[in-house]
């Protein structure tokens, strides 16, 4: 099993709903976030291009954050989801330094927090909060090993990219183009 997400940049309107939904679902304190939206504008008026992306932890296959964690608080679970166990985390920040996507943050309570792929919902057979709320239905979540899952199908039919592949982390969030 290999969970992954594909996000359709042709449909995303950059509304940040995925960000608020994550905050309320996962009790992310105000002032912090596990996902965020980037906007890239290219060209010059009136030949302009715009890309909006919803970003979060890439649940990398080759996760430097897990490797550099001195306590094992950062770990990989079933389906390739990268998690942090708060009671094992000493708050050294090594994982934050190691993430090319700046996907982690230091929770005000001291431990490091990040996107969990909403494993608590996924375990119950539900979709992650951000995926479930997205008004444009532009996010697909599922198992890459299952050829019929939403992600697998969307990746089969479309061109896509991942972010900073040169960092060698083998990110598992894909952007459909």
């Amino acid at each position, binding site marked *: 099993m290999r969970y992954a997400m594909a996000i359709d940049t042709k449909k995303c309107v950059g509304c940040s709903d995925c960000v608020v939904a994550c905050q309320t679902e996962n009790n992310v304190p105000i*002032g912090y976030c596990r996902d965020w939206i980037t906007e890239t504008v290219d060209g010059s008026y009136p030949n302009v291009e715009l890309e909006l992306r919803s970003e979060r932890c890439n649940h990398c296959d080759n996760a430097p954050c897990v490797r550099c964690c001195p306590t094992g608080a950062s770990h990989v679970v079933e389906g390739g989801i990268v998690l942090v166990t708060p009671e094992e985390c000493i708050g050294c920040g090594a994982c934050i*330094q190691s993430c*090319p996507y700046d996907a982690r943050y230091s929770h005000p309570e001291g431990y490091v927090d990040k996107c969990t792929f909403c494993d608590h919902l996924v375990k119950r057979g539900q979709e992650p909060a951000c995926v479930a709320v997205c008004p444009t239905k532009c996010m697909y979540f599922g198992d890459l090993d299952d050829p019929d899952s939403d992600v697998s199908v969307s990746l089969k039919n479309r061109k896509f990219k991942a972010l900073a592949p040169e960092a060698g982390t083998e990110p598992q969030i894909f952007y459909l183009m």
Partner: protein
Amino acid sequence: MREELIISGRMNPGIDPYLSLWHWPIPVYLFLGGLAAGILFFASLYTILDREKEMPAAVKWSTFTVPAILSIGLFALFYDLKHQLYFWQLYTTIRLESPMSWGAWVLMLITPLSFLWAGSYLQEAIPSWKWKFKIVQEILDWTARNRKTLSYFIMSLAVILGIYTGILLSAFNARPLWNTSILGPLFLVSGLSTGAATIMWISKSHLERRIMSKIDLMLIIVELFLITHMIMGFLAGSQVQIEAAQLFLGGPFTVSFWVFVIFLGMVFPAILEILELTGFKIPVAVPAILILFGGLVFRFIMVEAGQITRYLY
């Protein structure tokens, strides 16, 4: 025109607008770790070489500082943890892939050894000193007896510690400025150099000072070579690494790097040492302090600047 924005107002303190997670404790910790490694390296080296007599500052007197240096360093590290109550989790596992982990373990080993080493020389320094508990005396006697064997052990740990202070950073390939294999050797050499400077400063023997001064001069030359190599490497690297190097080549860290680290911390003390070696009278404290200061600033700059550099995508 290209515009890249985060539009969801992400304001994760410590991460945005750029990573600024590690503050003074980390560079202080890296500096002190390197310094301790340097002193212990020379102490064990000259013990192994049977030159305790010629090199009393290296082998004995300077090592009295090491337990304090390591304790302060460890405290700085602890102070920097954001989830301090859980720090013991560090010692529930050994994770070889995590420099932070084996660094913690190396410190765990080397710190008590440094206490033993210094302790075993305490009576030499203060002949009237008496240990309250017999067991302490016994352990220290044992240390003195096995000093040679221990030296091999300590020397290896010192090298590991010295390299570790660099690898801790270079293991983070997410920060282009740190992501160079030269950082390990560079920090080791820099640590040795600060160690040598300390010994030189403490030493009362002219011969010993000369030896350490020569060694130090060599180390500075190696250091300069490694730094050149590192910058050349960046410039030949990817866009993000070129931008990283630019921080020192016109960017915000240019002055502090070239003036404080390179000139005042290396070139100028090297000149002073050459002058001294060629017979000029120069108070030894001056180059020593400059080298120590340069080493500290170097680590501050590397930690600060490294956190600014990031992957662009």
